[in-house]
């Protein structure tokens, strides 16, 4: 049953993370050098402490050594972290999600035995998924409601040579790349199929380069991977060969962690504006007592609350997939719907919050411009909202694109 009452455990986790953010993150995140959106250094010490609190392994099962929380709890934690620092929130969300997917679901016992202990032992050991490639056109766009597929071939190749895979190619926009100890890499492993390979950071023939923060719509850190005759053992194949174990058929229902992160940014702006509006006096009274500002704050609150509702619904749906089967939930891409609504609503909300500060809203030594910038990054991160709307429309129409092999055969 859909139930918005958080469990005592969820409330406790939220309060713990909230305290952590207030005490350990905000004081650092609000320092002037962190307010420069273009060149802000990652808060590594905060990441270490967060890992010690268990936030790096939050979604990893308890059996494997994590906290084993569900998607909704992960969203709550990500929102709280992003309230302090979206980069910290992004890095932890990515590692925690991948830890659950890799160690709890996809790895063989032998792979887990090799990779889990070093991951658990090192607070700075993060995980990354390498799928995107330079200039690879992944947009739906012109292919909307048409049988042609938008997915070009994966160009990074893996060739079997004896007991090893030999990888060649380039991946870019790989979240967590500069911090990752282990990569799950999507490769072209032969005609008509992609596979996933586990590539440790120290694999010979792999070089990792951090990307310029200001040149990407991306929170956290990301980078580029170059594989030059990079060899990994045959047993590093993740899941069955020629099956994209992590990508799969994207139904737009993955965990809405990016949206929860976005919500944290919106809340930071909202809390700042609300506090300022109760402090600043113009026109003979506190500005919150003026209709114009009161209404603006109300609109911000409306946007954030509606965004949270749609994000939590998508998160709850991840934790209760049976609710789609019994038609409790509409057969729709709920996370994609949450992304479109939340990213637009929160960008507006941060702009409105900044406006409450007058000229201070655009000053780089004040946090408001940072919140606007960070919300703009969320608005344009990943697949575009224009594309998301086309995919939602295909879902509304019940459109099913023919399988890729069938499309190829038809040509």
């Amino acid at each position, binding site marked *: 049953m859909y139930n918005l009452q958080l469990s005592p455990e969820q409330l406790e986790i939220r309060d713990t993370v909230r305290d952590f953010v207030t005490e350990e993150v905000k004081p650092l995140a609000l320092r002037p050098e962190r307010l*420069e*959106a*273009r*060149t802000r250094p990652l808060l590594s010490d905060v990441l270490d402490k967060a890992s010690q609190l268990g936030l790096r392994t939050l979604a990893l099962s308890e059996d494997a050594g994590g906290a084993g929380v569900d998607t909704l709890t992960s969203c709550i934690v990500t929102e709280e972290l992003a309230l302090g620092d979206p980069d910290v929130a992004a890095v932890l969300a990515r590692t925690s999600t991948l830890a659950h997917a890799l160690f709890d679901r996809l790895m063989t016992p032998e792979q887990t035995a090799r990779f889990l202990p070093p991951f658990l032992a090192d607070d700075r050991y993060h995980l990354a998924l390498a799928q995107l490639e330079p200039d690879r*056109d992944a*947009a739906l*766009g*012109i*292919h909307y409601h048409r049988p*042609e597929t*938008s997915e070009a071939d994966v160009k990074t190749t893996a060739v079997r040579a004896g007991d090893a895979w030999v990888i060649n190619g380039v991946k870019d926009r790989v979240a967590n790349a500069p911090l990752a100890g282990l990569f799950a890499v999507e490769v072209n492993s032969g005609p008509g199929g992609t596979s996933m390979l586990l590539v440790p950071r120290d694999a010979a023939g792999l070089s990792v380069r951090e990307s310029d923060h200001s*040149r*990407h*719509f991306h929170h956290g850190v990301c980078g580029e991977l170059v594989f030059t005759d990079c060899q990994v053992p045959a047993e590093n194949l993740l899941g069955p060969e020629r099956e994209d174990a992590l990508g799969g058929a994207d139904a737009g229902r993955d965990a809405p962690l990016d949206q929860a992160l976005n919500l944290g940014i919106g809340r930071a702006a909202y809390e700042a504006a609300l506090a300022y509006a109760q402090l600043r*006096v*113009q*026109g*003979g009274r506190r*500005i919150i007592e*003026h209709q*114009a*500002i009161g209404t*603006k704050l109300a609109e911000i609150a409306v946007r954030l609350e509606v965004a949270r509702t749609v994000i939590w619904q998508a998160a709850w749906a991840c934790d209760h997939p049976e609710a789609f089967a019994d038609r409790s939930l509409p057969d729709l891409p709920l996370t994609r719907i949450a992304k479109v609504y939340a990213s637009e609503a929160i960008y507006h909300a941060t*702009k409105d919050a*900044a*406006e409450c500060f*007058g*000229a201070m*809203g*655009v*000053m*780089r*030594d004040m946090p408001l*411009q940072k919140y*606007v*910038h960070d919300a*703009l990054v969320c*608005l*344009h991160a990943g697949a*575009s*909202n*224009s*594309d998301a*709307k*086309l995919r939602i429309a295909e879902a509304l129409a019940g459109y099913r694109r023919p399988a890729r092999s069938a499309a190829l055969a038809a040509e």
Partner: protein
Amino acid sequence: MDFTLSNEQRSWQMTARKFAEEEIRPISVERDEISDPRETFDWEIIKKGSRLGFRTMAVPKEWGGHGTDFVTQALVMTELAKADSAISKTFSQCWKWSHLIAATCTDEQKRRFLQPFLEDDTYLLGKGISEPSAGSDNRLPPADDPKAGLKLRAERHGDEWILNGEKCFIANASVGKLFFIDARTDPNVPLKQGTTMFLVPRDTPGFRIGKVFNKSGWRFYQNGEMIFENARVPHANVVGPVNGSDMKTQQAGDRTGGDLFGDLELAANALGVCDDACGMALRLARTKKQGGRLLFEQQVVQLKLNRMHLLTEALRSFVMRVAWEHDHKLHSANPGLCMNFSTDVIQEVSELNLELHADAGVMEPRADKLVRDAIIWSHLAGDSVQRMKTTRRLAK
């Protein structure tokens, strides 16, 4: 109705377009990316523009300026802003206050200040109103509250006034040579009845510039703090009557120049940014491919381009109408409405341009810059106070 430009208007527009494309655009993004806010400024571009008349074009002919009309000024601001909004604003800021000098200064003051302004390519003007605790209160003073509004104090001692206090967010503060400063000469009455305007040259004893603000947009444009510590200003530098600064109302005579020009200025500048955004977006759509086809072929792209262009052309009509009404001394709420409207337009158009680039996977620093520049309009031209102030003109 006749929308034809005169030869003179057309000539100014073409000169501005050439200067903007050849000289301003090449340095625009580079200046924006400099991290120290004091270093973003470039005197060379100011001197080059000044030699073409873009610093002094609003000074009346009888005082040695170019005496351009408001339509010409709007055309030039738009052309310059198309290459860089902040550089355009640095020039037009001088027009704003040369209008004020022409409208309100005595002949003696004009001789002392307009002459050097006309002769020196690096002579920039500014005006100090805002203070740390007085922003909206200056724009929309609460009735009968003497405590509200600016606090900078001026007290008369013989032939001199002694100024004490602070200003903030003052345009051209760190580069200007002459400033109009509003100060309280009677702190016991409401703002409008107790404020006097002073001409304060840069080298006034007791007057200095504090920090330069580090803004997210309009980075070339210098905004600074002003600090007055027993600053001594001669009585001869009082503009208009004592206690008569009257804060941007028209009761002291025709202040179309210094006051309502500011509304036209922001709207015309926004129009230039929109022209730039439309140009960038259209170029992208006609060159970039997705799935082997030009972006322009996609309906969602066409609809976004349509929205950008219809808003921009609507703004152009409004801007040119307001400029024409200024030239014909027709006073209404239109300049304010146009300025408020320009906030909505510049933000939506620059955001759509960024969206089209981001959707196509193109990281274009200039698209990002236009969005950051456009956000400046929120507090200058389109916040709730600016909108209510315009509305109150309607009720007059």
